[in-house]
């Protein structure tokens, strides 16, 4: 199945809003760290419902562009805002339809690892960023967060499972400086008492604590030279 087919289905079944709700637990902290200035142009890679751009507009960015490979995602996202400064486009991570040095910052939540070739995506990111621009790359699916590994079984697209060190190395290979790496915990999700386990998702309470509180979202911040 293609990205388009898989995620168009998600969009039409309303999963885009469900992701927004869950991802917001950590995405809000990631977005808060971005050093955006009034008037900046920001790209959201794999925008889903487009919530990140709506939030960044409240901090004064000048333009927000939401790119997604699934047309139904962008169609929904467009219907969730009537902000003139937010626009959506359909495109692929590995062939960004954006001009060199055109963006101040790029944000991406739970999307990067779906790229057919993440190294190519990083080169594209570097190409479209202005000098000094940042790439805030946030993922919940990564080597150290073991209980996320099973997600691959439920999706037909091949997912890139990198470790923290692999993210840093790949950023540097693509010519980005690595400015930060952090595990951003999800403190919002409620974790039931030990007696409630095993649940559908977790064998033990420890596994669930590990997933949300210990690892949460892996943030890697790259800066374009």
């Amino acid at each position, binding site marked *: 199945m*293609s*990205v*388009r*087919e898989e995620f168009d289905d998600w969009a039409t079944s309303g999963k885009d809003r469900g992701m927004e709700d869950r991802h917001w637990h950590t995405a809000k902290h990631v977005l808060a760290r971005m050093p955006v200035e009034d008037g900046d*142009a920001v790209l959201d890679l794999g925008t889903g419902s487009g919530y990140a751009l709506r939030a960044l507009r409240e901090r004064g960015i000048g*333009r927000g*562009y939401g790119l997604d*490979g699934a*047309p139904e995602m*962008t*169609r929904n996202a*467009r219907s969730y805002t009537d902000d*003139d400064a937010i*626009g*959506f*486009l*359909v*495109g*692929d991570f590995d*062939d*960004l*339809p*954006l*001009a*060199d040095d*055109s*963006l101040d910052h790029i944000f991406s939540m739970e999307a990067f690892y779906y790229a057919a070739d993440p190294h190519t995506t990083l080169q594209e990111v570097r190409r479209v960023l202005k000098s000094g621009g940042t790439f805030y790359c946030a993922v919940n699916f990564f080597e150290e967060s073991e209980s996320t590994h099973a997600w691959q079984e439920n999706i037909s697209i091949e997912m890139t499972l990198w470790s923290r060190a692999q993210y840093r190395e790949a950023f540097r290979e693509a010519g980005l400086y690595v400015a930060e790496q952090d595990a951003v915990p999800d403190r919002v999700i409620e974790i039931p008492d030990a007696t409630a386990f095993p649940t559908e998702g977790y064998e033990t309470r420890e596994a669930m604590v590990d997933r949300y509180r210990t690892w949460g979202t892996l943030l890697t911040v790259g800066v374009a030279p």
Partner: protein
Amino acid sequence: MKESLMDVVCCPLDKADLDLDVADRDEEEILDGTLTCTECGETYPIEDGIPNLLPPDMRDEAAA
């Protein structure tokens, strides 16, 4: 899409500028039209206000 999007978009294949052909628009934005690469001539549709700038093989494969 707003016309101002033209400042940042380009052809996904060769990164050349695009020409805009408007088929339908309202006061605020372009609803239907075509973007054509000034270099390779490849065309990209704008539908319901959203440009589809997937590389043509991905766009066609998915539509099939």
